[in-house]
């Protein structure tokens, strides 16, 4: 029996941090499954929370006290404030629609072209591309296992699939915000020692994105009376 072919286990720390990073990726995949915007926002909050947990883990094990501040700020912003803003926005839209109460809560436009199972298979292929392309770059990180970077690139790519496949403005916005989560994960791996002020500046960029998306969603809803982008394609001449 040749046990030499076996892949050696990573240490508990790097195994555990990979599991948390995988949780971020699985949350991204979970967004395909959610049929309600409210659930999607909740899943976004969970995903952001996982990134904060990972930041705290890195801070504790690698002795980077800056990261505690970053984790707290990121949790406050992405787990609490952004979901609240999104929820209020969607609820407002639901109320504006005349008879059906809270239409914005239930209305979600699937891809229409691919079934959910096929979408997941497509996303697996895209995620595989992310995994293998980062592996080819041969990057080493001092604070986290490189698997986390591979996963973060996969999160970004899968978020793109989500944005392409969904045809309503709100879940496209959530796809964009979760894409930013993937970038935060990558930042944790390659630049955990970055000055705090820079990281915080990036976080506040997110706030700007939320405001812009809020505006876009309101304008679109005002014009089309729905969140679906299907109406936009009909404008083509």
């Amino acid at each position, binding site marked *: *029996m*040749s*046990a*030499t*072919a*076996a*892949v050696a*286990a*990573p*240490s*508990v720390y*790097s*195994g*555990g941090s*990979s*599991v948390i990073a*995988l949780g971020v*990726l*699985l949350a991204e*995949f979970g967004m395909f*499954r959610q049929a309600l915007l409210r659930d999607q926002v909740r899943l976004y909050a969970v995903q952001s929370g996982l990134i904060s947990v990972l930041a705290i883990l890195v801070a504790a094990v690698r002795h980077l006290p800056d990261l505690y501040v970053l984790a707290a700020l990121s949790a406050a912003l992405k787990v609490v404030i952004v979901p609240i803003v999104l929820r209020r926005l969607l609820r407002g839209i639901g109320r504006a629609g005349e008879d059906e109460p809270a239409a914005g809560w239930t209305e979600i436009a699937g891809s229409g072209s691919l*079934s*959910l*199972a096929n979408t*997941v*298979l497509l996303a*697996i292929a895209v*995620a*595989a591309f992310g*995994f*293998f392309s980062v*592996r080819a770059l041969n990057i080493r990180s001092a604070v986290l*296992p*490189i*698997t*986390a970077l*591979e996963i973060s690139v996969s999160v970004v790519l899968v978020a793109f699939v989500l944005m392409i496949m969904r045809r309503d403005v709100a879940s496209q916005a959530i796809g964009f915000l979760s894409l930013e989560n993937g970038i935060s994960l990558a930042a944790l791996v390659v630049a955990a020692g970055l000055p705090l002020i820079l990281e915080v500046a990036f976080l506040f960029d997110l706030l700007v994105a939320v405001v812009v998306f809020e505006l876009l969603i309101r304008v679109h809803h005002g014009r089309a009376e729905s969140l679906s982008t299907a109406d936009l394609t009909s404008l083509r001449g």
Partner: protein
Amino acid sequence: MSAALPIPVIQFLQVATIGVAAPGVSGVIAKVEARLQGRRGPRVLQPYYDLAKLLHKEALAPEGASWVFLAAPVGAAACYLTVPLLIPVLTSFGLPLGYMGDILGGGLILALASFLVAIAASETGSPYAQLGASRAKTFSAITEPVVLFVIFVVALVTGTDLPYALAATVRSSASQIVRPAHLLAAAALFMVILAETGRIPVETHTGTNEFGMIEEARPFEHSGPYFALLKWGSWMKQLILYTILLNVFVAPWGLAATAQIGDVALAIVALVGKAVVLGIVVAVIDNSFAKLRLFKITEFVSAAFLLAVLGVFTLYLGGG
């Protein structure tokens, strides 16, 4: 107390434990499920009474059914009695017959049993039994890739595909437990087991006449002792799958390290205890989720496939 059991006796005890405990585990699950729904539920020993009752009943075969119809329940039960020889049921060391087949061998025998039941169902003219057989085959074809990827994970983790080797690897250190590949493979296997044992996201296993039936519809035409064998077989299949999940992936502790009587007795108690705990988890899942529509089952399986594939990715790329 310190007397060592002969190895063939332990080998026999593995099969006997699965065969005797399987209806009981199923009875406990039914009881817990009923309690969670606010019913009193059947007695825990009800499955044994059911078996005893069915064994005394007359056996009927539909007109035109050949000998296959009657041979299949016996063959399937024989398959389910063979698999426990191949997996670590009681001991952490490999028993002589344990090396007859690897994980693929065990999977082959389980698939053979399910195939026998399916052809027996298609021997009858009953549309229900045939529908159940064809659905069961369709969905087991969909879950097959998931199982394959789980086996790939096992092979990459241990360098072999023997179940004993993986159990030993998992026991060896904490880093083997938290590694992402192991957690992902275990989760994927758990989802496959939910599908294969006909549990809630895929199939309701209680009611009888329902359009969502898959596994439960197959023995519709069997009666008497043959029906008893099929029932017993499906309970054994459930306990075998639980044993694989528990003793190979999730909790390979409590197995006998020696052939001492005390150790082996403890291992039997531990296995039944762990299976009951897992059964309670399954019953809770049964009560907290809705059954998926038949055409949504692919979504459930694609989630399991995602977990298994990510497990292989993380391993192959060195991080798992």
